[in-house]
């Protein structure tokens, strides 16, 4: 199957006087007709993964593949028509839209850069994408600050869709939005999925990922700790970290209290051992392998895989 994939990705950054391993061997693939989700807390490496998949950052080790061709640099990407493969929507639409450009210009910008079709055709295409996403002609000549948060995020999606990519990568697409408009953006992404577009949705909110994705990966400290069908992960989480993530989602009923501070994650052995309630001796020294567990799932845990 043709797809966008990352194989064995390692990435280390130098920060605060020490080396931080942001990604420690990540394998991920997105088919051209499936929606994949990635959940994890801040610092788990999910944004770095997005940057590597879109070639904005080079991995130290490992390869980004599209259609089984390795993409090493932007030159490679240009040759292979990367703009048609993947486009990305970032979290904060206010920062990702140039405040001095009008909406229509923002959407047309990508088409100009990649020299898609004729000039007049580009405007038509931008207009069509905008109206498809519910941004009417009255908004086309406006500037980003004149739109509401939900509308801005739709413009950001339009910018990505104008190039007709096969895969849309959405990095925290709803976290900057109010509850009443979050659903709009989720609906757009579900719609795109149903039309056959491949989607990678990255979020810290499991509920958002569950709505959109078929398959889901849970990331922690640069590792994938659990992956499998999104619905199963939500209903029957296996890894203790996934369980904690699901317990932490605020509900209308309120939940039992835990006031203790979270202990920092550790470098050696299982990264989650300091917070884990079921940790055993081996977790201290040995990083668990990712193994197939019940219900067609991969889990990285000594206790679950015993």
């Amino acid at each position, binding site marked *: 199957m043709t797809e966008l994939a990352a194989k064995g990705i390692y990435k280390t950054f130098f920060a*605060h006087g020490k080396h931080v391993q942001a990604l420690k061997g990540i394998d991920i693939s997105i088919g051209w007709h499936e929606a994949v989700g990635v959940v994890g*807390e*801040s610092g788990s490496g999910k944004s770095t993964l997005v940057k590597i998949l879109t070639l904005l950052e080079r991995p130290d080790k490992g390869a980004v593949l599209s259609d089984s061709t390795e993409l090493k640099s932007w030159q490679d990407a240009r040759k292979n028509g990367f703009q048609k493969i993947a486009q990305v929507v970032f979290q904060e639409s206010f920062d990702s839209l140039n405040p001095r450009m009008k909406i229509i210009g923002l959407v047309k910008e990508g088409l100009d850069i990649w020299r898609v079709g004729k000039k007049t055709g580009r405007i038509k295409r931008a207009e069509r994408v905008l109206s498809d996403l519910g941004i009417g002609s009255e908004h086309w000549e406006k500037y980003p600050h004149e739109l*509401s*948060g*939900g*509308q801005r995020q739709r413009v950001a999606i339009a910018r990505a869709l104008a190039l007709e990519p096969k895969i849309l990568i959405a990095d925290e697409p709803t976290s900057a939005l*109010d*509850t*009443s*408009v*979050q*659903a*709009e953006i*989720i*609906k757009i992404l*579900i719609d795109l999925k149903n039309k056959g577009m491949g989607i990678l949705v990255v979020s*810290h*909110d*499991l*509920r*958002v990922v*569950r*709505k959109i994705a078929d398959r889901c990966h849970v990331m922690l400290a640069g590792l994938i700790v659990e992956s499998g069908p999104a*619905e199963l992960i*939500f209903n029957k989480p296996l890894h203790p970290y996934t369980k*904690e*993530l699901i*317990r*932490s*989602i*605020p*509900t*209308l*009923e*309120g*939940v039992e*209290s*835990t*006031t*203790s*501070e*979270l*202990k*920092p994650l550790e470098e050696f052995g299982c990264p989650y051992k300091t917070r884990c309630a079921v940790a055993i001796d081996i977790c201290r020294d040995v990083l668990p392998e990712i193994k197939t567990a019940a219900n067609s799932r991969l889990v990285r845990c000594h206790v679950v895989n015993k």
Partner: protein
Amino acid sequence: MNSAHYALAVQNLWVAIQGLSRKAYVCREINFEVEFGRALAILGESGSGKTSLILALTGLLPSPPFCIERGEIEFAKSTGQSSSALIMQDPSVALNPVLKMSDHFAETLRLQKTKSNSIACELMSLAGILDPEAKLNRYPWQLSGGERQRVVIALALALKPSVIFADEPTSSLDVTVQKRILSLFGTLKQKEKLAIVLITHELGVAAEISDWIAIMYASWFLEYGPKSKVLSNPLHPYTQGLINAFKSLEDPKKLPKSISGAPPNLFELKDLCPFLKRCEMKVDGCLKTPPPKRGGDEHWARCHLV
């Protein structure tokens, strides 16, 4: 005004912002009281005026362009050095990056470090920080996001305020950390008998720790009441929409629901119901007269339908 049992009582508060040629109200007819050991959550979208309200109450409102036109704000006599404290959204901005934790406490307490350090340790352990002595010599960037927010909370507690204002205190934190910070607020409320005024745009956060909920929309309180009543029996269509949006996100089978449209521009606000354009249940009366305040003393909404 009889405010003997209240930590904070606000009566008929109007806050205006003066634009270049026109004036708008960011808070209109705000009435509420908070008792000791209780929490009020003010729930609203971005641009609803909730941050201006908190700034007005803490005396931090930049004037001009803002001005408090009328109203009474009364704090109970405080036993400590300060009647109120404010916790802002992003803890990494609230702390000075070139000052160690011990300096932050010395500055707030206006004591020499030799004296302030022991108090700082007490406050930090109250805020649930592990190993506070070691943390005294750290800089803000050496702490995790959750720890930073705990330090900000500990600093807020330093002058023994009776009311704590918290403006989106968990929006920049991970869900696992958010849950712990929220339960810390719950503990402080119960043990220290603090009154808490929490601003949030997330229904789940409001539901988790508050006793009272106020729904703020376009500078007005549209609904106000005890948490259990507002959540189980919402009176205003906007509140109903918010709760439906939240529930549809929880239920995997349902398509996510949103409230279509965007909040009105405060400069163009008329006396009529500000939710009119987005409301699906409007009646003739809505187009003619401003919405009346209806319901009981405890739980009321500003709507013709109630």
